[in-house]
């Protein structure tokens, strides 16, 4: 079951390890992460850093093309 943020970033809770690597590269400090919870907040500018850095590909950018 994937969660969608801003219709653009798909997040897969089954894959995520709650490791914080995405938080460390987010230029907007837009990610809230506890050991069991992940949210992208309004500050996000869709820069894709989090999607690209995720070691497990728990995040995916939805391109409409």
């Amino acid at each position, binding site marked *: 079951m994937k969660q969608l943020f801003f219709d653009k970033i798909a997040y897969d809770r089954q894959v995520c*390890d709650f*490791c914080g*690597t995405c938080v460390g590269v987010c230029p907007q400090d837009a990610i809230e992460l506890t050991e069991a919870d992940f949210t992208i907040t309004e500050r996000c500018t869709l820069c894709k850093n989090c999607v*690209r*850095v995720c070691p497990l*590909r728990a995040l995916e950018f939805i391109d409409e093309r």
Partner: protein
Amino acid sequence: MRDKYDIVIVGAGPAGSTTARFAAYAGASVLMLEKDRDIGIPVRCAEGASDAGLRAVLQNIDERWIENRISDVFFHSPGGKMVELQFKQIGYILNRKIFDYDLAQMAAKEGVEVLTKAYVNDLVRENDKIAGVKFAHMGKNFSVRAKLVVGADGVESRIGRWAGIKTQTKMRDMETCAQYTVHDVNLTGDHLHLFFSSKIAPQGYLWIFPKGGGRANIGLGISGDAAAKKAPVCYLNEFMAERFPHASVLNSVAGGVPCDHTLKTIVLDGLMLVGDAAHQVNPVSGGGIVPALVAGQIAGQVAGRAIHNGDVSAKSLQDYPKRWHKAEGRNHQIFYKLKNYINRLTDEELEGIAEAGLKVPLEKRSMITLFKAALVQKPALVLDAIKVFT
């Protein structure tokens, strides 16, 4: 829990626990908040550390912390050459579940109050000054006041950001990692193995750290730039399928390491950053346990004195960055340039370095002789090397 402390520390990793312990020892009242339900779990780490490094801060090394003793490393080239290097000092594969837990307990014994499941989500400000933190704990919101806030919140490093420091790690400096702790009958021998190859781990390396009894941490880290093309876990799965197709995976973790030099600003009025949060990691190896201990000791001592003197201004805390720079920070600046140099090497160049390294007799081999071999291999890099070492 009280509503006011001298110092609040965010994050109970090695950096937080060590800072807490030394600050409390110096007489400060300290609260340490950790968002996870357990200290030391999950272990996002290959658990390697040198004896000398640990002893710089910890007088006694507890046998329970040690899973294996290591005395050499094999570097693997892209073409499969193996260059052995013997350590001058003994290395350990730790059990960080026990190690991190004990560090927090050592802090507790000095009087530090520790609280887990405490997610810090903002700073408290009074008259534009940092005056504590807000946190969520078991569904309730709390606010606690402190003269000094310490951000020891690891790779996420949000405390510093809220205070106005740019703590974000650049994509090329973030080593993004996947690791399995495995059991495999073919995992024999107590040697470290490091694989350098653009096909196995581009702009990074793959490690096998043996834990004894056929167990090992097998993982890799690659730069954020490289990960944009293919995820670390895909590289790891390919390696496992090829080399250890029948291994049992006992544990799997992801993680990130800020392989950067130390942030320029690590103290502000009423604020300190320590450990990964301050980018105090050896940028070549990605090793951050010992740096976190070293920085934690200095930060804790300086924080304790600042509280005692009743002055937590950035000026009064300056001794911390100064002493850190002397202890490790200066070396990390050099290592950072060295990392950028290593990441630029092509597979052919790595192969040439391995070949040259093998020609050096084992007893004469060291990081320096290998580096010299690398320079001969790619003379154009002499210029870079001069930049690295000057």
